[in-house]
């Protein structure tokens, strides 16, 4: 699908890979730069405030949405996930008593103990949700639905 100056698929992928890159690709350079700065600042504030990435947990369905919001930040999310769990883990093991699950829960609890954890986690989720909107916006511009 190509309209409005660029491929919709390419602009969406670029928007996910780097916040604002989809707009930059579509010729909205100033807007792309502003989006990059805003999403990056939100994400960095999340890291600075000891925010944590979510793990998908079968017993708590809402964690799937939160994990999706984290993933929407793109590759940047690897940094926050690594800072929380010291590795790339996206789901809590089914057996919560296993050593692996206990290690993950301990990493998560260490973050929760930080006084600013709630702020940080909210910033990280917001950065992901903003980037999700940017991907949709880049798609709309690419197909000519929006200028």
């Amino acid at each position: 699908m190509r309209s409005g100056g660029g491929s919709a698929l390419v602009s969406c992928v670029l928007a996910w890979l780097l916040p604002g890159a989809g707009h930059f690709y579509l010729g909205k350079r100033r807007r792309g730069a502003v989006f990059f700065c805003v999403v990056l600042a939100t994400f960095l504030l999340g890291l600075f405030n000891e925010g944590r990435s979510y793990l998908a947990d079968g017993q708590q369905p809402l964690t799937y949405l939160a994990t999706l919001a984290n993933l929407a930040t793109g590759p940047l999310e690897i940094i926050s996930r690594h800072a929380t769990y010291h590795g790339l883990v996206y789901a809590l093991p089914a057996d919560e008593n296993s050593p692996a699950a206990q290690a993950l829960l301990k990493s998560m609890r260490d973050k929760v103990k930080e006084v600013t954890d709630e702020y940080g986690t909210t910033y990280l989720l917001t950065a992901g949700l903003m980037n999700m909107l940017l991907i949709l916006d880049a798609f709309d511009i690419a197909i000519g639905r929006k200028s």
Partner: protein
Amino acid sequence: MLRSHFLNMVIFSVLVSIFFAFLTQNDRRERLKVMAILFLSMVVLSLLIAYAMYPFPLNTAR
């Protein structure tokens, strides 16, 4: 770490208002207007809600 509730609220409001102003408007004046409306709404409404909640105790189990 930013431990101030108010500072976090102001920074968050600034970022969100800039984001939505640029997402929804193309004209510079309109962007500034939307930015100001969103920022003031978020901060003022939060303060009003906080003020309304002030008389309620934090822990009723005491």
